[in-house]
């Protein structure tokens, strides 16, 4: 990981540590000169700004414009050269120096997709230039390629996951999740986050070259309603050269006998045209906790994407298509009948159902299909003026299967179709020290619930229109970077919702919603309601270079968010969560004022970033248990949406220290506290204090080997609201009242992991990397407060992952 905005890659830090080293100890001829030229493997063009380091002497030189470099005052003997170039993988050359000589180094320039000749839409810092943008290195991204998106980014400070068992996870940034986190791929916002907490983002991060995370609403270009943050997935256009390259990564994991295979192939042409195909296949069996199999937690996934485009200075275009299909088993024991089973699960140590290990995905399960097409066209009319047009179509189908009887056995309980069309026009103008982006967009979204489920609609049918515009400006006066932005959105929702008469009467909806009733059935009411929401979001940030090694940034955002349809109207029983979920049709816009301060410093071998933040939410929408409701199947906990004024405060700390060459210590700490502003009552599902440390050892003796030990300490969440339920059960033929403790968070846990990396090695015409990693090395049994299935089973135990990566 590196903190992109502030610091150059770590290797530069390490390299500069021992500049004073000398080779005078050798009683040899130490006046030899090594000259060389670095060229690209593909087109023999010289590579400028490549760093050549002599390991033995710690000498560093940088290649000139024509790719040449000269290292003098070398002693005779064996030398190891480490050649690195931006975004290239480090290359190692061995030389037995006898006399002054000249060599030629050919670098595999494949991964270098950011070619300065091509005008790319977003330079790395362009998204949120006044913040700490964090980015996964290609290496990290590939290492976690078998995990989902949420788990991959949870390695950062301030980022965690809200999960439903082992297969479904949503990212949490600064204590917020769901609609408050935007997932932007190819500059298009992923639509499907509105469907509730037990739903993971339907996107394959492996289809993209870059994963970046912005904490806070520091950019209004894509969305205005994400005070939590943004996860940005994008791919760069390859260089306009004749080339064919690709990679294949194979992951095998011991815990779930899982296998994942991902592969991509890119063909680029000299005229800038390119085509890229990528696919991912995952087949995981049941996960295992240290003491038992987590029955029915298998997962199958297969994704395909195709990108066709042209990388051109003036007219750049890109067409992206992808299909995402998965089937995720939900822990069998979590499919409970009622509060009584929930009570049993909580008091028992082991899950109610533990079956033999299996690779099958049975009910209860989710099956998701997400189809995406997007097209973008960028026209540069003058050196400082750029227009861009984007259109996207997303079609998402989500099915949830419960354990059902008879003819309904194979029929989904929830079957939702969401179709979204979006179009946007952007204009970007760049002047000296200033750049301004502005755009307009329109979106139409149609959600339809299949009525054949025989279960009332969890999310009602609706059509949503959204239009809006934004303006962002970036100024760079001396030592300052100043960003401002404003965004307007207008939402026009037409919702038709059936209410059960019992709910209708109970909530006295006749008063507020009576005028929207269009149909009265025997025990249901159909309303048709058009709802308008207007939102304004503002953002301003300053980044100040105190000194070349120290920066201070302050970002403020005021973001308004229209309530989701789910928050307004969801209505139904989630068997896999054992909850009845109710929306609140009277919710209004939520607004958040968020302040994020970044203090970053780099001093030689030590660097840190401290980032405290404060969020003041008005009408902040939360879902919490409010009691139990009796049905024919027994009592179920009811979770209802309501809005509160909420205060979030927290701090993210990242530390990096290299005590000696080849050893790197990393630490990150995330702390957050969130309360209802007036009552001081803690909010539910807020991540507890967590610390992650790691030590990376890369011995200079074995240049292509590195070893890492990491530890994660997650404290018990002591700030939680009490939503326990009282339940009457029968014991010895008499009613006894029991407390169902659904509130108390599980105890703290400490996980240790390690990984080893070898490579790259040459293998036939490709390069091979091997990773071996162990998570939860000591097979520790623990439960996670942010897993909604924590009442039913422990988390996954030890997992050994072997990864083999080929690049060709």
């Amino acid at each position, binding site marked *: 990981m590196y903190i992109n905005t502030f610091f150059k890659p770590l290797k530069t830090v390490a390299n500069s540590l021992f500049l004073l080293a000398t080779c005078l100890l050798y009683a040899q001829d130490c006046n030899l000169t090594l000259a060389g030229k670095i060229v690209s493997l593909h087109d023999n063009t010289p590579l400028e700004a490549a760093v050549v380091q002599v390991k033995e002497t710690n000498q560093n030189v940088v290649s000139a414009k024509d790719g040449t470099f000269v290292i003098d005052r070398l002693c005779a003997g064996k030398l190891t050269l480490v050649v690195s170039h931006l975004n290239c993988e480090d290359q190692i050359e061995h030389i037995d120096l006898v006399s002054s000589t000249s060599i030629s180094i050919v670098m595999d320039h494949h991964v270098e997709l950011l070619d300065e000749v091509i005008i790319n839409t977003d330079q790395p810092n362009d998204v949120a230039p006044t913040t700490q943008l964090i980015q996964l290195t290609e290496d990290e991204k590939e290492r976690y390629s078998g995990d989902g998106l949420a788990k991959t980014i949870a390695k950062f400070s301030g980022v965690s996951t809200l999960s439903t068992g082992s297969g479904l996870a949503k990212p949490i940034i600064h204590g917020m999740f769901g609609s408050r986190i935007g997932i932007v791929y190819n500059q298009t916002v992923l639509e499907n986050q509105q469907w509730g907490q037990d739903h993971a983002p339907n996107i394959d991060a492996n289809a993209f070259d870059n994963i970046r995370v912005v904490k806070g609403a520091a950019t209004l270009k894509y969305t205005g309603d994400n005070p939590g943050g943004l996860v940005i997935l994008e791919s760069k256009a390859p260089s306009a050269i004749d080339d064919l390259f690709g990679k294949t990564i194979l992951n095998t994991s011991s815990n779930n006998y899982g296998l994942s295979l991902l592969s991509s192939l890119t063909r680029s042409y000299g005229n800038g045209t390119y085509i890229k195909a990528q696919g991912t296949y995952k087949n995981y069996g049941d996960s295992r906790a240290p003491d038992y199999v987590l029955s029915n937690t298998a997962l199958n996934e297969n994704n395909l994407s195709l990108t066709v485009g042209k990388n051109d200075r003036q007219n750049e275009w890109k067409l992206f298509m992808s299909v995402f299909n998965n089937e995720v088993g939900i822990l069998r024991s979590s499919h*409970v*009948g*009622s509060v*009584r*089973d929930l009570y049993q699960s909580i008091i028992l140590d082991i899950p109610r*159902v533990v079956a033999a290990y299996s690779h099958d995905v049975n009910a209860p399960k989710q099956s998701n299909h997400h189809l995406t097409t997007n097209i973008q066209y960028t026209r540069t009319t003058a050196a400082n003026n750029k227009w861009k047009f984007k259109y996207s179509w997303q079609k998402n189908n989500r099915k949830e299967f419960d*354990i059902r*009887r*008879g003819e*309904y056995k194979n029929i989904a309980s929830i079957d939702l179709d969401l179709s979204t069309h979006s179009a946007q026009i952007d*204009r970007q*103008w760049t002047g000296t020290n*200033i750049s*301004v982006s*502005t755009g307009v967009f329109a979106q*139409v979204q*149609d959600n*339809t*619930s299949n*009525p054949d*489920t*025989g*279960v*009332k609609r969890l999310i009602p*049918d609706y*059509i949503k*229109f959204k*239009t809006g*515009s934004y*303006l962002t*400006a970036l100024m760079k006066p001396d030592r300052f970077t100043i960003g401002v932005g404003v965004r*307007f959105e207008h939402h*026009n929702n*037409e919702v*038709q919702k*059936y209410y*059960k*008469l*019992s*709910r209708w*009467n*109970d*909530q006295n909806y006749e008063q507020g919603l009576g005028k929207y009733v*269009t*149909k009265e*059935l*025997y*025990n*249901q009411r*159909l309303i*048709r309601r058009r709802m308008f929401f207007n939102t304004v979001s503002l953002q301003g940030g300053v980044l100040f270079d105190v000194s070349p090694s120290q920066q201070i940034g302050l970002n403020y955002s005021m973001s308004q968010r229209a309530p989701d349809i789910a928050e307004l109207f969801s209505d139904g029983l989630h068997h896999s969560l054992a909850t009845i979920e109710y929306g609140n049709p009277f919710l209004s816009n939520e607004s958040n004022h968020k302040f994020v301060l970044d203090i970053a410093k780099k001093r030689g071998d030590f660097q840190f970033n401290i980032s405290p933040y404060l969020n003041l939410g008005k009408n902040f929408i939360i879902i919490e248990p409010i009691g139990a*409701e009796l*049905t*024919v*199947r027994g009592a179920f906990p009811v979770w209802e949406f309501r809005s509160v004024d909420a205060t979030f405060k927290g701090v993210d700390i990242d530390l990096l220290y290299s005590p000696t060459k080849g050893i790197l210590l990393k630490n990150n700490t995330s702390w957050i506290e969130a309360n209802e502003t007036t009552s001081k009552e803690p909010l539910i599902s807020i991540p507890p204090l967590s610390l992650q440390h790691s030590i990376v050892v890369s011995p200079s003796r074995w240049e292509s080997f590195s070893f890492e030990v990491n530890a994660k300490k997650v404290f018990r969440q002591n700030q939680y609201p009490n939503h326990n339920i009282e339940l009457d*059960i*029968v014991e010895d*033929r*008499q*009613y006894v009242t029991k407390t169902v403790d659904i509130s108390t968070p599980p105890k703290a846990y400490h996980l240790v992991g390690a990984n080893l990396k070898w490579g790259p090695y040459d293998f036939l015409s490709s390069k091979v990397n091997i990773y071996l990693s162990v998570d939860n090395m000591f097979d520790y049994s623990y439960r996670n407060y942010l897993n909604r299935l924590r009442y039913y089973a422990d988390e996954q135990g030890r997992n050994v992952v072997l990864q083999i990566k080929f690049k060709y």
Partner: protein
Amino acid sequence: MLKHIKLQSLFIASLLIITSCTKDDGEPIHEHEVNKVVLHFTNTADSSTFEVEWELEHIDNEHADHDGDEHAHESHIELAPNSEYTVEAKFYDVGEHDESSDDHGHDHDGDHEEEGEDITPEIIEEADVHHVFFEMVGLSNLTIVSASGDNKDANDFGLNLKTTWTTSAEESGEVKVYLIHEPDTKDGDTRAEFGGEDDVIADFEVHVKLED
């Protein structure tokens, strides 16, 4: 600087498109559930029979309910002391009778003529994944066991669709009838031991007393 922004940026106001596009009404969904349980009693001594019914209260404006909970009509079982009864249990899914909008004020006094869909054959067909459990509250002398002629599953466990109830001293209490789907075991004395999920829980008030 600010002038520059003004000059150079085309700040286009939102297009407030008020579209008139609407969707057709989605079909109403009839939820499938077991919402009626009938216990058919036969006194083994004199072969006299009677039936007690539990049915989920269909909520309409006349039976307006203000706690969101589902209610059933109160169902009473009157039994004689020191007697033996054969009890046959039947389970139904009573549909939502009308799906037209003009039945406002329709008379629903709980006296439903329709039997609804009989789920019992389905239970027998899937005998292995079903079990009926009678849980007693406040009744210390009543015993309920699987009767001869009860439907059995593959492991020869009676489903308790046909049971024998034996009374002794006078007492009053409750019998809760559970239709359990996918029980972990069919061998148990308390509801918790069975595992699985409840398709329906029907509460019957039971009075064991000499008839006046």
